[in-house]
C-alpha cells in the first residue's frame, strides 16, 4: 500500500480524483440539500413550470406579453430585452467612444484635454451610480401635462415619446432593413470593386444602390400604412394622458444613456490604444506617397488601428452586454430581472439558476463567435505587416 503511494503515477491519479471528486461532492451536496428544502416548501423540481402562466407582467417587451403567457415565453422576452438594450448601448457607447477617442488622439492639445477630462470623470464613477442618476433625472422631468417638446418628441417623467410612422409591424421592420441596406450596400460595393473600377464610376453605382434601397423603404412604408390616421403618428396630450407615438420608458433610456456614457469612456481608451499601436513609419510612408491627410487616415491609420482594437473591443462588448443586468436596479425587465422575478414567484430556484447560467453562457459564446469571425475576416493576410 505504502509502496503504491510512492508511485508518482498513482499519486497523481489519486490527487486528481480527490480534487474533482471533492468539488463534485460539494455541488452535489448543495443540490441535494436544496431539493430537500424546496420539497419541504411544496415545490417539485423539474421544468414543468416553464409551461405554466406567470400571473405577472413585464414593463418592457418587444414581443406581445400578458400575464397569461407561460414562463418560457417570459425568459425569451428577457433575453431579447437584454440583447436589445445591449445592442443599443453598444452602438451608442461605440459612437461616444469613437468621438472621445479621436479627440484624445487628435493633434490639437485642447481637444486632447477635453477627451481626457471626459474619460477621467466618467470612468471613475460606478456604472450603477450613473444609472441611478439618469433614472432620477428622467423620472423628475415634468408630468405629461407640462411636457418639454422638441422636434415632435415629448420629454416627460413617464418616458420619452417619439413620433412613429403609422405602419404595420412587419412593414416597419422591413423598412428598417431597407434603410440599413441603404448604408451597408454602398460600403460593400465599395469594398468589392475597389481595384477594378475608377473612382467616379464606383461612386455612381454606390449612390444608385443607396437611392434604390431608400426608395424601397419608402414604397414599403407607403404600402404598409395603416388605413386610419396620418403617415407620422405624433404623440399628443389628450386629457391627462399622452396618446400616439412611441413611448421609450425611463428605465430603458436611463440604462442606455448610462451605458453609452460609461462604456464610451472605456471604448475611448481602446480607440486611443488602437491608434497608438499604428507604427509611425506607416503614416510617414503614406504621407511620402503623397496621400492626403484624410486618405492617410481612412486608408492607413483607421484600418490598422481597427485591427489592433478589435480583440479588446470584443471583451468590452461582452462586459457591456453583462452590464445590462443593472436593469434590476431601476426595474427594467432584462433577462436577469425575469430570472429574479421567476425565483420569487415560482420558487423553482435550482432550475432557474441553471437557465440563468445557460443564458449568459449562450450570449457570451455567440458574441465571442461573432467577433472571432470578424477578426478572422479582417486580419491581415500573408506577412506584409512587419512590426
Amino acid at each position: 500500500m505504502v509502496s503504491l503511494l510512492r508511485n508518482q503515477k498513482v499519486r497523481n491519479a489519486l490527487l486528481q480524483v480527490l480534487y474533482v471528486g471533492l468539488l463534485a461532492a460539494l455541488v452535489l451536496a448543495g443540490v441535494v440539500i436544496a431539493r430537500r428544502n424546496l420539497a419541504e416548501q411544496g415545490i417539485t423540481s423539474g421544468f414543468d413550470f416553464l409551461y405554466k402562466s406567470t400571473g405577472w407582467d413585464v414593463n418592457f417587451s418587444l414581443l406581445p406579453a400578458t400575464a397569461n403567457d407561460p414562463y418560457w415565453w417570459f425568459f425569451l422576452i428577457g433575453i431579447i430585452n437584454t440583447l436589445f438594450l445591449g445592442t443599443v448601448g453598444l452602438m451608442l457607447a461605440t459612437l461616444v467612444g469613437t468621438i472621445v477617442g479621436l479627440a484624445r488622439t487628435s493633434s490639437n492639445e485642447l481637444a486632447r484635454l477635453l477627451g481626457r477630462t471626459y474619460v477621467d470623470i466618467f470612468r471613475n464613477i460606478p456604472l450603477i451610480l450613473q444609472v441611478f442618476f439618469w433614472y432620477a433625472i428622467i423620472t423628475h422631468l415634468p408630468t405629461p401635462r407640462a411636457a418639454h417638446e422638441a422636434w415632435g418628441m415629448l420629454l416627460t417623467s413617464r418616458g420619452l415619446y417619439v413620433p412613429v410612422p403609422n405602419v404595420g409591424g412587419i412593414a416597419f421592420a422591413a423598412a428598417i432593413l431597407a434603410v440599413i441596406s441603404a448604408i451597408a450596400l454602398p460600403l460593400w460595393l465599395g469594398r468589392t470593386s475597389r481595384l477594378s473600377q475608377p473612382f467616379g464610376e464606383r461612386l455612381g453605382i454606390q449612390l444608385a444602390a443607396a437611392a434604390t434601397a431608400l426608395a424601397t423603404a419608402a414604397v414599403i412604408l407607403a404600402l404598409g400604412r395603416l388605413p386610419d390616421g396620418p403617415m407620422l403618428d405624433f404623440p399628443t396630450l389628450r386629457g391627462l394622458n399622452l396618446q400616439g407615438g412611441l413611448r421609450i420608458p425611463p428605465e430603458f433610456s436611463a440604462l442606455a444613456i448610462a451605458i453609452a456614457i460609461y462604456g464610451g469612456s472605456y471604448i475611448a481608451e481602446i480607440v486611443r490604444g488602437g491608434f497608438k499601436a499604428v507604427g509611425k513609419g506607416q503614416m510617414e510612408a503614406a504621407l511620402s506617397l503623397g496621400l492626403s491627410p484624410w486618405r492617410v487616415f481612412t486608408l492607413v491609420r483607421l484600418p490598422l488601428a481597427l485591427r489592433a482594437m478589435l480583440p479588446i473591443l470584443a471583451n468590452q462588448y461582452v462586459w457591456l452586454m453583462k452590464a445590462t443586468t443593472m436593469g434590476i436596479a431601476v426595474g427594467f425587465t432584462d433577462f436577469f430581472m425575469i430570472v429574479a422575478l421567476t425565483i420569487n414567484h415560482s420558487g423553482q430556484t435550482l432550475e432557474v439558476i441553471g437557465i440563468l447560467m445557460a443564458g449568459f453562457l449562450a450570449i457570451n459564446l455567440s458574441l465571442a463567435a461573432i467577433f472571432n469571425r470578424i477578426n478572422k475576416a479582417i486580419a491581415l493576410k500573408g506577412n506584409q505587416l512587419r512590426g
Partner: protein
Amino acid sequence: MEMVVVAPPAPGKIEDLKRRFFATPLQALLSLISLAVMAFIAWKLLNWAVFSAVFTTSGGPEACQAAAGACWSVIAARWRIILFGLYPFDEQWRSALACVTVVVMTVLSCLPAFWTGRRIALVWGAGTALYYVLMKGGVLGLPQVGEEAWGGLALTLFIFVTTCLIGFPLAICLALLRRSELPWISRTTALIIDGVRSLPLISILFTFAIVLPFALPQWLVGDKLYRVILGSALFFSAYQAEIVRGGMQGVPAGQEEAAMALGMSYWQRIGRILLPQAMRNALPATINQFVISFKETSLVVIVGFFEILASGNAAYGTGEWRFAYVEVYAFIAFIYFVFVFSLSRYGAFLERRMSVGER
C-alpha cells in the same frame, strides 16, 4: 573656417500660442470649438455648484429649493446618513475611525517598503481586524453593533477590503491549480474560472445572498453580508487568477528549470522564484482589477445592503429633500471618484516606474 551658429530667436508668447493652437485653419477651428465647449460646461457647472448654490442649512429645504443653483444643504443635513448609514448616532466616531483604518491600510500597501508577502499580509490582516473590532464592538467597553446596522461608506470599504483579502489568496490558488500539470485538475479549475467569468457579478451576488441559503445546511448559512462578500471574492478571484496566470506566463521557463536544478522543492520554487516575478509582471493589471472591484462594490445595493449608494438614496428619498437628488448623487460620485481616481493614478505611476526599470 569657423561657423557661427545663431540660435533662432526664442518664440514670444503669442507666437507660441499661435503655433500650438492655430497652426492651420482646421487646428484653429478645433481649438475654438474645444475652448467653447469647455468654457460653456465650466461656466454652467461653476454657476450651478458654487455661485448660485446654497451651502447652509439655515433656510431649510424650502429656501434651498427656491435657489437656482445646487442645494448643498442636503449634504450638510444628511452627511451622517450617507457616510455611516444606520449606525447608532453616538457610536459613529467608530465608523469614521474604521474608514480611516482602511484608508491608512491602503496607503501603506502602496508603499514599496511593504511589498513582501509577509508584510502585506500583516498590514491587511491587522487592518481588517482593527476595522472589525471598531465596527462590531463588544470588547474593550465598546457597545456591540450588529452587521445589519453597518452602512454607508464604512460598509462599502469593508466589502471592498474583505473581497480583496479573501479573493487575492484564492486567485493565486486558482492560478496555480490552473497551470497544474495534472490535466483533470487544470481542466476543472479552468471550467470554474471561465464559468464565473462568463456570469455577471449581480447574478453571483444574488445567488449567494438569496439562493445559497437553500443549498446550505442550517449551521452554515451565516450572515447575508458574509455570503455576499464570499460571492464577490469568488468573482474577484476568477478575474485576478487570469491576471496572475498571465504574470506567470511572463516568467521565463529557465527560471523554474534553474530552481529545479538547484534542488528546490515545489513550494520553494513557487514562493521564491515564480510568484515574486509573476506578481511584478501582473502589478499594473492587478491595480486595475482593484479599481474595478472597488467600483463594483456598489452593486451590493441590489441585494439590499445599505452601502453608500443606498444610504444616498435614503438621504434624499424622505420628504423635504426629495428635490435634491442631483446634489446627493454628485456627492457620492465625488467620494467614489476620489478613491478610484487616486488608485488608478497610482497604477499609472507604477506602470511608468516599472517601465523605467526595464529599459
